[in-house]
């Protein structure tokens, strides 16, 4: 446990490589990543202990000559460093036709900073054998909860992240952990098979192991109700969003639209609306690796910029967006610490981290009471952004009908929420005084570049099209 010994051993060679490459480039930085990840999964018939999908060890070098950028991804930095630098430079040489058509001048800054960051975890307290036993026991208990469960699955994931960033003037390292757990039931009743899940995430395994088993009864009840769920009658409804769906709206409806690399490309309508009302005046929205503690909480981003807490919407007015180093430099703004890569093998883009609406002052029961006929929506399935045109599609796993101010036993599934972003955000009329954030999912940019994110917030009352 603790910061990667391997990355630690590479500091001198990385600094030598930076110095060599600086002979040809105005800016050079190296990001080294060593993520140790394990997935332990048990279902009613099989079990596995395997490397987690986040596991990686490698380097990416970022360079600029004052105009366009260059990147080179590799597994190791060792051996003849001047020869490596020469090879990298040669392999990235542009053909004349490309060289003649590059972006305008961009001078990346490299402010001096040397710092180490650590967020202590507890992974050393648990062996894989103990975690496997936990999964087996929990799986057995879950499977025994109902004769309708065809298969039960329990998965634990643990990852310890070490990242080292070195440029001419900066040397940063960070080490932190994240643990997650998920329960899944394949459930058949009422002539219908469904798949349902519950999850938990925390920097410590202790919290996950404590909280996950307590979600089994909720999971089984939900599975039963989902087998009774009917399709929703398409229409425009008053809707209460549970925190997961509030987060989905924050993420898909507005978060992608304020990723500022899209501003550079003129791909985001939000660029024109900074300083204007884009949402109801009771609406406040934030994003940041330092905004809250969840799966996307780190100390510095993949550009070596310190994490921050960005207010995106303040009292309904769009304040600012989220940037990586390159987009902030091109736009003449300060980077917000949102430069993220899927891995060292992929490019850094401006990406969300932990994205959420802030809590308000309304009581959830009053919000439900205020609706004659509508739905409360729960659990994110997926969503899709449209930053240029502000169309949205958010898919909830299920909704519960509200009649005369009360939740009924009428469930609908799935529920596709669609419409025009400003219409949705300006329709927010109540915001609950509670708050929840969850980080089970991954976020893509378009259909690629997957990174872990969290989102959430309070419950919102909105008016929106469901189908």
């Amino acid at each position, binding site marked *: 446990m603790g910061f990667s010994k391997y990355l630690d051993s590479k500091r001198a060679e990385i600094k030598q490589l930076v110095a060599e490459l600086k002979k040809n480039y105005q800016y050079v930085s190296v990001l080294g990543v060593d993520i140790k990840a394990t997935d332990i999964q048990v279902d009613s018939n099989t079990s596995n202990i395997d490397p987690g999908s986040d596991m990686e060890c490698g380097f990416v070098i970022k360079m600029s000559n004052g105009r366009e950028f260059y990147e080179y991804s590799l597994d190791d930095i060792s051996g003849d460093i001047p020869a490596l630098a020469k090879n990298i430079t040669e392999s990235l040489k542009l053909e004349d036709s490309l060289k003649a058509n590059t972006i305008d001048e961009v001078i990346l800054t490299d402010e001096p900073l040397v710092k180490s960051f650590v967020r202590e975890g507890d992974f050393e307290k648990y062996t894989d054998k103990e975690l496997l036993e936990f999964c087996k026991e929990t799986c057995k208990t879950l499977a025994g909860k109902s004769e309708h469960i065809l298969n039960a699955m329990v998965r634990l994931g643990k990852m310890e992240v070490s990242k080292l960033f070195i440029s001419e003037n900066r040397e940063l390292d960070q080490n932190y952990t994240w643990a997650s757990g998920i329960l899944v039931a394949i459930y058949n009743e009422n002539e219908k098979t469904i798949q349902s899940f519950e999850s938990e995430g925390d920097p410590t395994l202790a919290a996950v192991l404590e909280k996950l088993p307590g979600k089994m009864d909720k999971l089984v009840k939900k599975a039963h109700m989902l087998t009774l769920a009917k399709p929703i009658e*398409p229409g425009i409804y008053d809707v209460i969003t549970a925190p997961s769906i509030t987060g989905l709206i924050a993420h898909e409806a507005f978060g992608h639209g304020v990723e500022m690399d899209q501003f550079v*490309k003129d791909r985001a309508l939000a660029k024109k609306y900074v300083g204007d009302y884009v949402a109801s005046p009771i609406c406040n929205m934030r994003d940041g690796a330092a905004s809250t503690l969840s799966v996307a909480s780190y100390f510095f981003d993949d550009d070596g910029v310190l994490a921050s807490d960005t207010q995106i919407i303040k009292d309904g007015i769009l304040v600012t967006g989220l940037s990586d180093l390159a987009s902030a430099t091109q736009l003449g703004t300060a980077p917000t610490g949102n430069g993220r890569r899927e891995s060292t093998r992929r490019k850094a883009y401006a990406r969300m981290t932990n994205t959420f609406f802030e809590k308000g002052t309304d009581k959830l029961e009053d919000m439900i009471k205020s609706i004659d006929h509508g739905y409360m929506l729960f659990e994110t399935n997926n969503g899709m952004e449209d930053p240029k045109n502000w169309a949205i599609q958010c898919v909830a796993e299920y909704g519960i009908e509200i009649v005369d101010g009360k939740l009924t036993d009428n469930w609908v599934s*799935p529920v596709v929420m669609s419409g025009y972003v400003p219409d949705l955000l300006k329709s927010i009329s109540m915001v609950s005084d509670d708050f929840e954030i969850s980080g089970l999912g991954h976020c893509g940019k378009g259909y690629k570049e997957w990174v872990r994110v969290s989102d959430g917030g309070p419950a919102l009352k909105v008016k929106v099209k469901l189908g």
Partner: protein
Amino acid sequence: MIKIIECLKKNQRVDEYKINLTQKESYQLFFVKGKLETTRRTNTCDKEVTVYVKHGEFKGDSSFIVYPSTTEGELDNLIETAVEKALLIENQSYELPEAGEGEYQVESNFSNYSLNEIAGIVANTVFKAEAEEGTALNSVEVFVNRNTITVANSLGVNKTQIKYSAMVEAIPTYNGKEESVELYQQYNFSTLDEAVITAEIEEKLREVKARYEAKKPENEITGSVILNKLELSELFSTLAYDLGYYRVYAKSNVYSKGDMLQKDLTGDAITITMKGEAEGNIASAKFDGDGMNLTDIKIIDEGKVINYFGSNRFGQYLGEKPTGSLGCLIVEPGTACPKCLSKAPYLEVVSMSGLQVDAYNDYIGGEVRLAYYNDGTTITPVTGISITGKLSEVLGNIRLAKEVAVHDRYIGPKKAILSGMKIF
């Protein structure tokens, strides 16, 4: 790999092993508003080792990653730790694929060029597309990949295949007087055909102008819904991947052998074959991650589920013949001629936020970003609408085009007509 095999053979507790190596080379170009912003190159190698240990009636396995920095001493420790983990795993026993050697290249004309040459040709071809007045490509990303994949195991499998692929993500934009609009396109291919790339981009540039002109219908519209290859790929993938061995073994499949997917059939019967290789298909491969040779199999015949497909381990668990992990989804064309496809009223979907197909809940639908609506007299571009319907009903009445199209791993009808969907 020799060092890894020596260490594995040294450990007496390792009964069997498998080694997966993937050498990944990639060249990538990123353009912003037509100008080059970033050039990337990657040169990496993934090495994953799986050890298998037989204990009692069980066969346990555990995997680990080997890095360039991993020393022989560390490798010995990794193997020993993996053995200990495998002893905790009480899985039903199964046999690994046996002896087979070979070096293959999955068909592609990329091998005639270097990666940066292909990227340059693709970029030039994309920007050569004739733009409608007011249209532009605000963002273009070009990825060209060469993966050399090796699988070796302790029973004599030692196979290598070279696979090429390319991806273009293009964002066509139309800048009008009142607003600017865009569409999203990701195009994957493994054969370089400049004419096809240009045609794909030009079509999107025409469509983005239509999105600018599109309006939300003032009144309710009705008619059949026409889906194109991208959405059909999503629809048929949902049906096919429900029939994978793992899904069936985990009991999470909705459909089973003998089921008729098309009850009350009034449209074209659906026939789907999963293949290992198909011309122009990006999922083409010579073998899978276990080193299994791939065996094509028809899974749905005239609307009836007749077979499952999938990997070695779960095939054996189900008592089925393993086909290997098959990636190419082949759907037989139907009877709908161009005249049938233009019978009004209809809504032809051009772009969606993502077609949602939920077999568990018998649902199909989603938000439509651009469609053409033909009311019988005029064809109008429309936006701001959604479609929704019952999957089982749609499967019963679907009419499949005679014309075939390729999209990523899908080869099948270019279009299909769906009746009974609500447009709202």
